[in-house]
């Protein structure tokens, strides 16, 4: 839907769906953050004019269906392997814009090896990492990012760090690698954090265009179904319980000129 207001009979577009977002209802659950992140990706790629150059890699997880909603060339990677698949694309398609989109089970559990090494090599790839703290697609099991005490179908009494370890701050871990030019964490909590997340994504795309290195944006997202909450409760939980464990903000920016002196 395009909403128009008329001032002096001149139509002014305040809100229009991004061209790269397919005109199709998503298959995500009501209130799921994946839809918001898809839209941000579509907006940013559209604004930078990157759609026709983009080759995107879909993960295994709820967002495997990204190719149904984003009007981009896509390849489907095996579970966790998107950064390796993207590396292969990067090395043979010098003019392509290469984008990966992964969940936290995909990136922070089964795919740790691939993400660490793509980052370490400083591959000119932009990685979108949607952290909803749970395995959404398989029915809400514990992920490496699940909060301590959080109940899931595979830790019914809550995550106990004595047995299951503590949540992995993947993006902070990746940020220590010199190959990572830019790492930031946004969220879908409210309009202003969504706006900031969009700026992080835009920067992460620019980093690739400048061939400055690997860029990753983690987006704290919700999984109302997996968390057993209403969409509104899940957003409150994201703000009050998740964000304090995974503080949003720019984690590293090696493209920034050195300060001081």
């Amino acid at each position, binding site marked *: 839907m395009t909403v128009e207001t008329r001032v002096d009979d001149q139509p002014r577009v305040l809100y229009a769906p991004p061209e790269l977002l397919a005109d199709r209802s998503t298959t995500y659950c009501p209130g799921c953050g994946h839809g918001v992140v898809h839209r941000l990706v579509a907006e940013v790629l559209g604004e930078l004019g990157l759609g026709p150059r983009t*080759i995107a890699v879909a993960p295994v997880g709820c967002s495997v269906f990204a190719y149904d909603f984003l009007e981009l060339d896509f*390849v*489907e990677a095996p579970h966790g392997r998107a950064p*390796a698949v993207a590396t*292969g694309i990067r090395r*043979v398609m010098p003019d*392509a814009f290469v984008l990966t989109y992964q969940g936290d089970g995909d990136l922070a559990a089964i795919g740790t090896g691939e993400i660490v090494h793509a980052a370490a090599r400083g591959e000119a790839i932009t990685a979108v990492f949607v952290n909803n703290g749970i395995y959404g697609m398989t029915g809400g099991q514990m992920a490496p990012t699940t909060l301590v005490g959080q109940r899931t179908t595979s830790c019914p009494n809550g995550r106990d760090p004595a047995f299951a370890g503590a949540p992995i701050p993947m993006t902070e871990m990746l940020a220590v690698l010199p190959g990572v030019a830019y790492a930031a964490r946004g969220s879908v909590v409210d309009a202003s954090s969504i706006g900031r997340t969009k700026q992080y994504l835009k920067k992460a795309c620019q980093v690739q265009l400048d061939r400055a290195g690997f860029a990753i944006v983690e987006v704290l997202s919700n999984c109302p179904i997996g968390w057993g909450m209403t969409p509104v409760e899940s957003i409150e939980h994201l703000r009050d319980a998740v964000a304090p464990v995974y503080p949003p903000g720019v984690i590293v920016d090696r493209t920034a000129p050195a300060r001081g002196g």
Partner: protein
Amino acid sequence: MTAVAERPADAPFARRTRVLRKGNEAIAEAAIRAGCDAYFGYPITPQAELLEWMARRMPQEGRAFVQAESELGAINMGLGAAACGKRVLVSSSSPGMSLMAEAMSYMAGSEVPIVVVNVMRGGPGLGSIGPGQGDYWQATRGHGHGDYRLPVLAPSSIGEAMDLVAASFEIAERYRTPVILLADGILGQAMEPVEETYRTPPRLAADWALTGADGRPPRVVKSLHLKPEALEQHNRHLRAKEAAIRDAEVRWAGERLDDADLAIVAYGTAARVARTAIARARESGMRVGLFRPITLWPFPDAELRHLATQVRGFLVLEMSAGQMLDDVRLALEGARPIAFHGRTGGMVPMPGEVVAALHRLENRTGGPAR
């Protein structure tokens, strides 16, 4: 079939270049000359020289080389590059091939052409670094999960391996399928004089490849079909493709079969041992020939079955506990007695053992032919 092109009588002698080359390196160079755009690998014996050759040569040619973090990384890099319509080679040896199984299945399902070399070693597990043929089942039964098969080409000399590299790319691209080039530790490690004859298969239009959706609708390379009807339909399409491959791509070689009343069935290095054993057996008056499958899938079953109208018995010789044996049994459908001789663990059968096995087979089939 042989890889060594005959020199035309009038060709100047200087153009004929023979070099002494290690199998792994010969395969690597043949891939480069076949137009390989990208190589991805991970060190493993007895395949490491292939990776090392590529590390040196691919950058010289301005092409892509990555030493991956694992075979998972290597094969998935291969998947990404091949999904862009590029000519891609990945290589490994047995344990590494096991790690690649998932991606092989994805590429079969999403119809991504790629050539994967397995320089087989002794197994199971970490096994040994000696030569083996224990991955026959893995290779010929599709390699990964799901219902599909992949073309598998098995050279038995370094020259033939070079020729089959180009053929593998051709088959991969013609049918949009992964192809496995199945060698073993001896073929990988040995040095042989080879003719420097290379072939670059022509490129086919890849109207499915990912290049960015510029002025055309987006393309998706995927294997997920959640609706059972859709997946069954897709699988029927894969079956039809496999039928076309069976019809057109069977390769095998026969040696000394004209007067044979016994035949050894062997591929790869085992076929070389068989050749020596056949020469010895013939010295003692036995009439033995060699049936050597070059495509292990599709298996030359009609051709083998036809041979059963002539020979009285078959000896299957493998560097495994008996894997191709299954396909020989399926092809012959009980038409003739089948004996088996195999060594495992990195052991190579000795010609003397093979001759003894031939004698036992001869006794089973009614004594020496008169």
